[in-house]
């Protein structure tokens, strides 16, 4: 399997899984994202987007988190092929 292209979390679709590569953006947002457990290497699953397409909901380690699409745009991820159980 070829290595998937890195992309932004905000570009992922509902039902996709991925792994976090890096978190950028300003320090405050970055630290908050990391402190909520979205650290490098963490796998996640895109649960859904809100009815108005913003914010988005994802699951990491069994926890449901929601973040704005603009905030997801500071997170680089690599999509995973396997779908969530």
């Amino acid at each position, binding site marked *: 399997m070829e290595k998937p292209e890195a992309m932004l979390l905000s570009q992922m679709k509902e039902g996709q899984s991925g792994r976090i590569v890096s*978190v950028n953006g*300003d*320090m*405050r*947002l*970055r*630290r*908050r*994202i*990391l*402190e*909520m*457990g979205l*650290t*490098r290497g963490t796998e996640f699953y895109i*649960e*859904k*987007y*809100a*009815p*108005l*397409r*913003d*914010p988005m*909901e994802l*699951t990491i*380690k*069994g*926890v*449901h*988190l*929601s*973040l*704005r699409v603009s*905030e997801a745009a500071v997170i680089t991820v690599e999509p995973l092929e396997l779908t969530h*159980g």
Partner: protein
Amino acid sequence: MDKKRLRIALTGNPNSGKTTIFNHLTGTRQKVGNWPGVTVEKKEGDIEKSGFGLKIIDLPGTYSLTPFSIEEIVARDFILEENPDVVIDIIDASNLERSLYLANQLRELDCKVVFALNMADLAESRGYRIDGEKLSELLGVPVVFTVGNKGKGIDEMLKIAVEHAVSGQGIPETRKVRYSKDIENAISELRQLLEEETGPEFPYNRRWTVIKLIEDDAVVKRRLGQILGDSGGELLEMAQQLRARLFELFNEEPEIVMTDERYGFIEGIIREVVTASKRRRVDISRNIDLVLTNRFLGFPIFIFFIWAMFQLTFTLGAYPMEWLEQGVSWLSSGLGAVVPPGIFREFLLDGVIAGVGSVIVFLPNILLLFFCIALFEDTGYMARAAFLMDRIMHLIGLHGKSFIPMLMGFGCNVPAIMAARTLESRKDRILTVLITPFMSCSARLPVYIVLAGTFFAAHAGTVIFMLYLAGIAAAILTGRLFRSFLFKGEDAPFVMELPPYRMPMVKSLLIHMWDRAKMFLKKMGGVILVGSVIIWVLSAYPKDIDYSVDYEARIDKAMQTYDKQQEAALPEEAERLAEQRSEKIDELIRARRVEHAEKSYLGKIGRVISPVFKPLGIDWRGSVAILTGFVAKEVVVSTMGVLYAVEGETESEALRSALRNSDITPAAALAMMVFVLLYIPCIAAVTAIARETGSVRWAFLSVGYTTGVAWLAAFVVYQGARFF
């Protein structure tokens, strides 16, 4: 007997069940207030346990102790500066990994800490088993298991906390988080310097202080500057050099690397203590969310819930409200019969009872509203509401959760402003509090009904609807304006947990409701009492008014004239004459009342300020009505009733014809409605603003700003409307 006293602080993530445990511990013995100088709610309660007097302090729920949010600063400062005897960290056992982040920050702070693994039953049903002994051994911290909502393990938790406070040891150095070699080297270099610079009385843990300096923690840097004075400069400089060196090594800010490494440490701990069964866990919350935040169903269901909340609060609440109104008028007439007429009776009935009574009738609304809000919060639906609404609210620069307070504003601004407490970030909370008064509350409706009904008869509905829209527009514009000037800078990150749905507990719902009610009665009661007495004094005094006409004499004369005529008249004519007689007398009494109102202090103030309202087409009567509207906006109508000398004050048909015959133009009426829509919220709302923002300054700002906006808008409306 002199008992030994201990102070126990509770910390934990939001949704960890901390509040449930706190409620269980303290029951109704809790005191709710604010932390000094900030708008964060502070709860504490005194209890007794195994011969100790314990003060339990509920710290704000946070994910971390990074001093970014006010809640985090409050929690950390309390632990650092107040030195509680022991800290109990409530950990959501089904969410151990994330909870351990805060737990480790507590360990680094070097306070005595006990971990309570809460909701372990839930964790097990989800397929996790946690080895508490191992966790305790690895982290060097006592660990207990609790099930907060069933009250299990809480006694044990308290016992261990007390023991640990009395005889426990701090966390051994060997159990602390070890960072990678380069960071540890930087820590020990800086620590050496810190030890040289400080004496033995240095108040904070040194390793922690050094770590914070390397993380560029603004609060710690400032404190250190205060403690060390000039000699702190060298330390800060060295910290900056070390940061630069680490940045070069990692190509990343040290604090980011350290956050990563803490999670690495936590992962190691998790591997040791958690056994996850292969059994696939059922995520009930996800299934519920398939419906409640569904792309198509999410909004209709949300609207239904809001509708139901409105119905419950304002329709169901109308019944007890009526009973209270009856109670107040019964009390008023009862006292009227007992207390001898005179100035004291007027003060008691027209000042105290009328004023406080007009506010206390809102109590059922407030209770019901807060019951609903507590239900939304305790079940976990509030986070979903924010999830649904955030896109829309973000346009005004607000958080999704701001929607509920703003919506409640259409009912009554007071509970709406209080509902802003549900917002976590201070900026969002203050902004929500400041724009909520533009939501046209139900007390403003009578004013619109009278004025729009009189001057725009056929289009009254449209006019009133436009007023509501104008209020929303003012709120949106104010939101954007304040966001870009007063609350500059980045938005608080939205990143939010959608907690699992939970069955709410009746006890905690009731405690929540009672807290609010108590606060409402105590604080609002006091200010409103004073406010209504002031307004009463202004409208009742001076007593010795120099009337232009001797009303008493005229009334006497009229009585005599009619009495004479009646004596002489035939029986069928006597009836007509009796009618005329009472009409004549009423007319004179009304005229006296108008003159009294005109010459009272309030009337004089009205005259003085009327030039301000002249460009809006509002005369002195309107000015006085607007002034008295400060007590409660529906009072505007009754004041107009008095000033236009209408029978029974609020009989709106009579008031309408009086207004129609006055020199008020439709343009002026429209301007007046716009002014009433936008100007100063009532005393109760202003009090709530001061209370919820934690500062009288915000209340003044609100009063000044809303009145300014109201004047400007009414001016534009009046001057504009005159061209058509």
